[in-house]
């Protein structure tokens, strides 16, 4: 009831909650889009921004690392065949691993020599997972291949049949650039199976410190939009949205013409965390709610990040494979700040030497790096933060802040009780599987309880019971 009231008041006060990019003065405007309104979501929190150090730092290539550890799979399956031997010299872009299907092939990010077979830790939603990896040393460039060397890839995607376009995308063995890395063609097949009519590019990026998506849009915005349009054509989605932070509109002005050209609706949204989480973004933009424990594709919305759009552009238009990505290096303890083009397989500790504690991903949903954590397509940032002050957790005093701020409207306090008492059935009735793992409850808890991790663990146990009898192909790593 209160939420409804707040929603009405917010709508009355702020007028159109989502400000269109077109409303920037001097950019021309489209009345139709200007007056489109978007919803909001209950809960959420206003986080400190803390992006000042890297927000305006343009993208550079990182120097040649001393070694790479290229995992032999994206993390979903390890039935792969390694094509190189120890001691062999490889060149940049050479096929290192033949996957179970052609979409899961792995390519060498740099030229060099295979020095050993080692292990690398790749992030998944469940924590880091150890995978066999190929260690490359004696690396050599040229590495700075960001700039398209003319449009020589030469695939005419506008005239191509969507099926042919999908075929071409599959040949690139592109990975999805999200936390759980999978082959892009699997993702496309799933989107088509669910009949997604809406494709949303999620550039909200509202975790503190992370700025790579922003720089990507500011510097390679047109390429990102083109990649988004290619993906929309591949999954045959008629409606394409680009959601961006309304505070950054000034840097995105040059995107307007391109977005009109590719029929992409740019949408500026307020930055209340976790609006950048996929289910919340879908709720805000389309007013559809993801079923608990499901994906946004089940409600007809496919959500991608700008990084994969850029990779698609580079493969389809320029003809270069995805061998690295743009990530943010930062944090108070970091000696290097900025946004860098980093090859996959770089060890996180090589990126920020000297920092003891590294965070892989944003500070709200990221993971603590172990010694062998590597940069994968799902890496947004590697951060060296000031260590969180260790406070002893005290009993829940039922202040209700977790419940107030939970974007999934879970009664987190009751879930915490269920966790402490081991009542998984009760947790299921409370809807624990609807948790979107944004971390707001742990952030806000004045009793310093690890609420987010407890709910995550409950969720995992419940899913285990839900999928009883089904063998999971995904290895469960050492969770946080």
């Amino acid at each position, binding site marked *: 009831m209160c939420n409804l009231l707040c929603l009405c008041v917010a709508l009355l006060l702020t007028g159109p909650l989502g400000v269109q990019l077109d409303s920037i003065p001097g950019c021309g405007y489209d009345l139709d889009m200007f007056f489109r309104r978007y919803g909001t979501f209950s809960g959420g929190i206003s986080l400190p921004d803390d992006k000042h150090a890297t927000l305006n730092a343009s993208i550079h290539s990182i120097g040649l690392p001393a070694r790479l550890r290229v995992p032999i799979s994206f993390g979903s399956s390890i039935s792969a065949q390694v094509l190189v031997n120890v001691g062999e010299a490889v060149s940049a872009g050479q096929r290192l691993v033949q996957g179970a299907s052609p979409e899961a092939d792995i390519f060498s990010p740099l030229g060099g020599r295979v020095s050993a077979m080692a292990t690398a830790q790749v992030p998944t939603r469940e924590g880091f997972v150890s995978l066999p990896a190929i260690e490359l040393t004696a690396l050599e460039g040229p590495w700075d291949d960001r700039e398209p060397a003319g449009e020589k890839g030469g695939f005419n995607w506008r005239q191509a049949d969507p099926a042919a376009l999908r075929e071409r995308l599959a040949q690139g063995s592109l990975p999805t650039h999200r936390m759980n890395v999978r082959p892009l063609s699997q993702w496309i097949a799933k989107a088509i199976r669910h009949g997604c009519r809406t494709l949303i590019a999620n550039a909200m990026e509202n975790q503190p410190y992370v700025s790579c998506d922003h720089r990507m849009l500011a510097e390679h915005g047109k390429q990102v939009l083109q990649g988004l349009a290619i993906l929309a054509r591949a999954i045959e989605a008629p409606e394409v949205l680009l959601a961006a932070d309304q505070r950054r509109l000034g840097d995105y002005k040059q995107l307007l013409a391109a977005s009109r050209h590719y029929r992409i609706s740019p949408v500026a949204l307020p930055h209340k965390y976790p609006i950048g989480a996929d289910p919340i973004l879908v709720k805000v933009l389309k007013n559809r709610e993801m079923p608990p424990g499901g994906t946004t594709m089940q409600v007809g919305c496919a959500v991608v990040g700008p990084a994969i759009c850029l990779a698609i552009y580079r493969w389809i238009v320029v003809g270069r494979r995805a061998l690295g990505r743009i990530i943010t290096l930062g944090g108070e303890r970091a000696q290097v700040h900025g946004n860098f083009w980093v090859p996959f397989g770089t060890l996180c500790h090589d990126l920020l030497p000297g920092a003891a504690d590294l965070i892989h991903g944003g500070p709200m949903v990221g993971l603590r790096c172990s010694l062998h954590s590597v940069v994968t397509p799902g890496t947004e940032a590697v*951060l060296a933060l000031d260590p969180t002050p260790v406070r*002893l*957790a005290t009993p829940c*005093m039922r202040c209700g802040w977790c419940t107030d701020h939970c974007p999934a409207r879970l*009664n987190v306090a009751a879930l915490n009780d269920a966790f402490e008492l081991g009542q998984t059935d009760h947790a299921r*009735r409370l809807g624990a599987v609807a948790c979107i793992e944004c971390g707001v409850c742990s952030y806000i808890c004045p009793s310093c309880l690890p609420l987010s991790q407890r709910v995550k663990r409950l969720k995992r146990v419940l899913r*285990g019971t839900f999928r009883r009898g089904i063998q999971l192909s995904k*290895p469960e790593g050492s969770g*946080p």
Partner: protein
Amino acid sequence: MSPPASTLPALADLSDRLNPLGSPFLRAPETARTIFLLVMAAAMGPLAAGLVFFGWRAVQVAALSVGACVAIEWLYYRLTRLPALMGRSHAYLTGVLLALTLPAHVPWYVPVVGAVFAILVGKAIFGGVGHFLWQPALVGRLAVAVLFAQQIANPLPQLPGAWPILAQNKIVVGDELNASYEASYRQWRRTPPAPGRDAFWLTSVQDKLAPLTRSSQGVEYSALATVPETPGAKPVMILQVPPIGDLLLGARPGGIGETCAAVIVVAGLYLVYRHYVKWQLPAAFVFSACVVAALAPIQLQGPGDTIVGAWGPPGGWLAMNWFSSAEPWTQPPLLREGLEVGFIYVCYQLLSGEFLLAAFFLATETTSRPVTTGGQILFGLGAGGAAMLMRLYVDTPIPAYIAVLLMNTFTPMIDTIWRPRVLGMRRYAWLRKTVERRA
């Protein structure tokens, strides 16, 4: 591999509590301790008002109460070897809240005994902060209200029900037990005390109207309304109740922190502004109390045992004549008198007791109120209504506190039945599923 299906989550252990591994890696600055201390700082406002109107004895009671609470909590945890779970910030807060509910003229042992009950019975036997069922300060207050009824209600044996308050020119510094009874007292402002005295003995305002509701004989006219034969005369009750200015300012007998409505509301709104209190709970509390006061049938007693007016028929609620004006005295107060007089009456009922302190400071205790917003609204509605009903029909000195304790008892139930709709689920999905399974 997926965990075995029957695995329960590992129970909270120390490593889980220290939280060294997982995200998020940022923390909001507020901790339980800062919350308790800030609520205590807000409670200093009513305490300061108590210092103004009741003098140094108010501070004495507060110091005794806080000191006893902290000492007993320290002793308890020392003896039982349990870790002091919350530091002692919550004991400080409990002590201040207990002092706010006590009048300043009580002997020294009353706040001490109250603190013993608050900490031991209210808090410790449940396991400390986060586990208790009833608001501890109110447990202590209820205990002393039962144990020391005479010392609290009748500090002057020859003048039952009279409580002292400092005169206008003796605030803060005066001794409130150095008081005299002024039969002609009407208004605190501009009333000087007797020579050599610091304070007045005043009959507690709530005693003027509240006990008058227990007669069953019908009355032909209302006490609030103008007497029909003399148009233009002031309503009888308006002449009896204290001026509204005194009620807002707090110049009336009562507990140390109960009287000054203006300061309580300001301090409470500060807590709302800091998000330590949701506005819905006090609002529901006050709203529900107002509605009950405006609609409940009562009878008013004049000097002696005479009945000077009534709203509502002798039959009570069921025989009430809600809308027809055929027998006007059988209508509820607000309908009978209209907004003008009815508003004064409702304000009087609301401001002359301990309602505002209960609504903003005691009902909002984090552990003993429901968690969700809807649950808090239910809680506030129930507590406010019960408090006003108890004030009108039950002879108790602390109706609002008892009502809060009553609703505290139902808090776990409210938390169970009121659940917000989870993202992606239907409202009451758990209930539907259970019903379908049964059917």
